[in-house]
C-alpha cells in the first residue's frame, strides 16, 4: 500500500512536466490533463485514507523510502515519505480542494491563451505541496516548501505583463526566502544537535538536549512559518499576492500553502513542547497577526484584499492555537481544514463576482448582486456564515475550540489570549458582514469599466459554480462532522498528542461570549453599511481606517527601511567596488607608469651624464665594498 504514496506526488508532477514541456499542441486538452491528474492524486489519497481507517491507531503510519537523496559522510538525506494521520488530513485537503479549483479554473481561465501553462503551474503546486506534507525529514520538507514557493511565484506573476503582478510575485518569493533562512538554520541546528533531521529520530530524542537548543530550533521554525503563512512581521506579501488569478488566491493563498506554517509547527510539536518560551512567542505572533489581519480586512475595499486580510487573521488563530501546545494542536488543524473549505469557497465566490463584473474588484462598485448571481450569493453567504462562526456551521466549532483553548492556557496569558481571540471573532463578524453587504445588498453602484460599458452581471458557468457548491457544503457540515463524537480529535490525537485544558470559565460562557461579540460586530457593520447608502468613492475615513488601508504602514516601513536602505547600500558598494577595490589596483599600475616616466628622464641622451652615472656608480660600489668590510 505504501508504494502508492510516491504516486500521490508523481501524478501531478507528471502533469506539470507534460503541460510545461508539451508546447502549443497541448493547448486544446491541457486543462483536462491537469484536472485529471489532480483528481488521480485525490483518488489515490482517498484509497490510502480508506486503507488507513482499516488499521489500528498504532500502525497508521506508512513510510516509503525511495532512495538516499544526499549521501555524504555523516549527512544522510533520504528521498523518503511518511504518511500518518496528520499528513493524510493535508493530502485530502490539498488534492481535494485542489481538484475542485482545477475544475473551477477550466471555466475561469477559459479566455486566457496561456491556460495550459496555468494548469501546469497548478499541478506543479499540488505536487510540491504534497511533497511538503509527505516528507519524512525536514530537508525534503524544505524541498516541497520551496517548491510551493516557486509555484506561488509563478502563479502570482501569471499575468507578467502587469508590472504590479511581477512585482508582487517577486515580493512574495523574497519574503518567503527570509522565512526560509529560519527553516535552513533550524535544519542545521538539528543536524549539529542530533546528527540527523529526519522527523522520527529528531522528535524522538528531543529530551536529550537542552531547552535552549530546542527554543532556538523552535524560533527558527517559527520564522519559517511566519514567512510561508504570512504572519507578522513577514505578512506583507499576502495582500499583493492577490494580483494572481482568483483560483490561485483560493487554492494557494487561502486553503493550502499559507497553512504550511501551521503544519510545520504542529509537525514539530515535540520540539515546541520542550520549549515553552518558543511556544509563547508563537502564541504572541498568532495573536498579533490575528488582530492585524482583521483590522486590515475591515478597511480594504478590494474584495480579494479584504479576504486576504481575513485569511491572515484566521491563520493567526491557527498559529495561536498551535502555540498553545497539546491543548491546541488538534484544533489548529481542525480550523485549518474548515477554513480551507469556507475561505476557498469565499474566494471562488469573489472570483465568480469579478467574472460577472468585468474583473472589477472594488466592492464599492458592486452592490445588489444577489439577484443577478443567486448561486454565488448562496454559496458565498454560507461561507460567510461559516467564517463568522454562525452556530452549527464549521467555523463555529473550530473557532470556538480555539477560543476555549486560549482561555484554558490559564493565567493572565490565558485571559489575554482569550480576550484577543474573542475580539478577533467580533472583528471578523464585522468585516465579513461588510463584505457581504457591500457586494450583494444595497443598491447597484456599478461603474463603467475601462471600455466604458456598464457590466452585465450574470451567473458563472457550471464548471465554476459546481466547486463553489461543494465547498459551501463543506463549510456547512465539516465542522459538525468533525465535532460529533470528537472524531477529529481521536483521529489526530495519536500524532499530535492532546490534553484537555480546563478554561477558568465554562465552555458555555465562552460560547455565549462569542455569540455576543458576533452580534455586536454584525450590528456595527449593519449600521455602517446596511442602513445608509455607501459612497462609491471611499471617504477619507478615520486615522485607523487610513492606517488599515495602508496595511498599518507596515509596508511603507519595509519600503523605507529595507528597500531604500538596500538601494543605498548596493549603490555605495558598487561605487566602492569600482573606485576603491579596483582603484587600488589601477592606482598601482598608474604609479608604476608614473615612476617609469620619471626614471626615463634620467636617460637624457647626453653621453657625459651616462658617464656621470657610471662614475657615481663606481664610487658607490667601492664605498659599499669597503663598508661591507668595515661592518
Amino acid at each position: 500500500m505504501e508504494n502508492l504514496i510516491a504516486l500521490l506526488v508523481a501524478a501531478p508532477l507528471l502533469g506539470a512536466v507534460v503541460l510545461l514541456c508539451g508546447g502549443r499542441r497541448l493547448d486544446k486538452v491541457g486543462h483536462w490533463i491537469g484536472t485529471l491528474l489532480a483528481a488521480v492524486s485525490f483518488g489515490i489519497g482517498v484509497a490510502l485514507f480508506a486503507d488507513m481507517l482499516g488499521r489500528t491507531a498504532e500502525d497508521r503510519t506508512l513510510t516509503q523510502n525511495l532512495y538516499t537523496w544526499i549521501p555524504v559522510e555523516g549527512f544522510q538525506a533520504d528521498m523518503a515519505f511518511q504518511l500518518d494521520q496528520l499528513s493524510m488530513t493535508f493530502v485530502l485537503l490539498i488534492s481535494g480542494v485542489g481538484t475542485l479549483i482545477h475544475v473551477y479554473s477550466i471555466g475561469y481561465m477559459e479566455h486566457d491563451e496561456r491556460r495550459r501553462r496555468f494548469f501546469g503551474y497548478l499541478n506543479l503546486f499540488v505536487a510540491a505541496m504534497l511533497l511538503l506534507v509527505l516528507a519524512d525529514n525536514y530537508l525534503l520538507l524544505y524541498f516541497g516548501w520551496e517548491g510551493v514557493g516557486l509555484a506561488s511565484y509563478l502563479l502570482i506573476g501569471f499575468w507578467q505583463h502587469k508590472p504590479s503582478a511581477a512585482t508582487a510575485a517577486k515580493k512574495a518569493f523574497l519574503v518567503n526566502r527570509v522565512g526560509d533562512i529560519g527553516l535552513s538554520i533550524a535544519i542545521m541546528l538539528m543536524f549539529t544537535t542530533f546528527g540527523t533531521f529526519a522527523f522520527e529520530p529528531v522528535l524522538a530524542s528531543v529530551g536529550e538536549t537542552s531547552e535552549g537548543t530546542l527554543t532556538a530550533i523552535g524560533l527558527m521554525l517559527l520564522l519559517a512559518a511566519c514567512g510561508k503563512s504570512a504572519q507578522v512581521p513577514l505578512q506583507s506579501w499576502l495582500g499583493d499576492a492577490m494580483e494572481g488569478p482568483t483560483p490561485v488566491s483560493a487554492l494557494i493563498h487561502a486553503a493550502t500553502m499559507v497553512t504550511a506554517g501551521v503544519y510545520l509547527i504542529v509537525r514539530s510539536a515535540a520540539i515546541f513542547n520542550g520549549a515553552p518560551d518558543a511556544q509563547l512567542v508563537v502564541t504572541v505572533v498568532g495573536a498579533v497577526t490575528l488582530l492585524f489581519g482583521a483590522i486590515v480586512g475591515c478597511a480594504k475595499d478590494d474584495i480579494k484584499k479584504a479576504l486576504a486580510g481575513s485569511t491572515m487573521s484566521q491563520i493567526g488563530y491557527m498559529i495561536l492555537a498551535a502555540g498553545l501546545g497539546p491543548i491546541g494542536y488538534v484544533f489548529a488543524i481542525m480550523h485549518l481544514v474548515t477554513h480551507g473549505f469556507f475561505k476557498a469557497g469565499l474566494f471562488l465566490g469573489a472570483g465568480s463576482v469579478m467574472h460577472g463584473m468585468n474583473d472589477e474588484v472594488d466592492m464599492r462598485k458592486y452592490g445588489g448582486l444577489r439577484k443577478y448571481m443567486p448561486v454565488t450569493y448562496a454559496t458565498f453567504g454560507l461561507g460567510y456564515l461559516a467564517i463568522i462562526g454562525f452556530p452549527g456551521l464549521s467555523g463555529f466549532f473550530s473557532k470556538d475550540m480555539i477560543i476555549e483553548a486560549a482561555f484554558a492556557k490559564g493565567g493572565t496569558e490565558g485571559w489575554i489570549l482569550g480576550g484577543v481571540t474573542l475580539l478577533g471573532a467580533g472583528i471578523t463578524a464585522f468585516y465579513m458582514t461588510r463584505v457581504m453587504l457591500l457586494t450583494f445588498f444595497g443598491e447597484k453602484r456599478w461603474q463603467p469599466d475601462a471600455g466604458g460599458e456598464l457590466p452585465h452581471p450574470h451567473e458563472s458557468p457550471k464548471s465554476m459554480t459546481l466547486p463553489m457548491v461543494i465547498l459551501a457544503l463543506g463549510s456547512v457540515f465539516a465542522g459538525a462532522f468533525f465535532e460529533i463524537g470528537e472524531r477529529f480529535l481521536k483521529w489526530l490525537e495519536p500524532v499530535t498528542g492532546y490534553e484537555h485544558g480546563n478554561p477558568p470559565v465554562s465552555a458555555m460562557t465562552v460560547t455565549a461570549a462569542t455569540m455576543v461579540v458576533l452580534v455586536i460586530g454584525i450590528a456595527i457593520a449593519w449600521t455602517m453599511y446596511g442602513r445608509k447608502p455607501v459612497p462609491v468613492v471611499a471617504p477619507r475615513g478615520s486615522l485607523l481606517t487610513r492606517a488599515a488601508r495602508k496595511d498599518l504602514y507596515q509596508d511603507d516601513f519595509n519600503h523605507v527601511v529595507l528597500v531604500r536602505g538596500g538601494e543605498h547600500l548596493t549603490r555605495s558598494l558598487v561605487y566602492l567596488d569600482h573606485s576603491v577595490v579596483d582603484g587600488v589596483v589601477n592606482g598601482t599600475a598608474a604609479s608604476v607608469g608614473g615612476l617609469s616616466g620619471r626614471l626615463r628622464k634620467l636617460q637624457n641622451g647626453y653621453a657625459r651624464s651616462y658617464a656621470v652615472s657610471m662614475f657615481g656608480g663606481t664610487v658607490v660600489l667601492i664605498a659599499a665594498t669597503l663598508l661591507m668590510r668595515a661592518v
Partner: protein
Amino acid sequence: MNPVNYLYLAALLFTIGGVGVLIRKNAIVLFMCVELMLNACNLAFVAFSRMHGNLDGQIIAFFTMVVAAAEVVVGLAIIVSLFRTRHSASVDDASLMKL
C-alpha cells in the same frame, strides 16, 4: 723615495682623467682624458712592478700602450666621421636618442 707615492700620483691622474671625461664637451678632449686614465694605470703598473720586484707590470704597461693605440685608431675614425656629418665634435650635440 717611497714607491707608494707613485701610486698616489697614479690615482690622482686617474681621477683627473675621470673628471675630465665628465666635464669636457669636445669628443677629442674627452677621449684624451680616457687616454690619461689609461696612462695613470700604466704608472700604477710600473710602480707595483717595482714594489714586487717582478716584471709583469712593466709588460702589461706595454700591452696597455698597444691597446690604447688601437683605441685611438678606432675612436678617431668614429669621432671624425661624426664630426664630418655634424661639423661639431661636441658630444652633447649627439643626443638624438634619449628617454
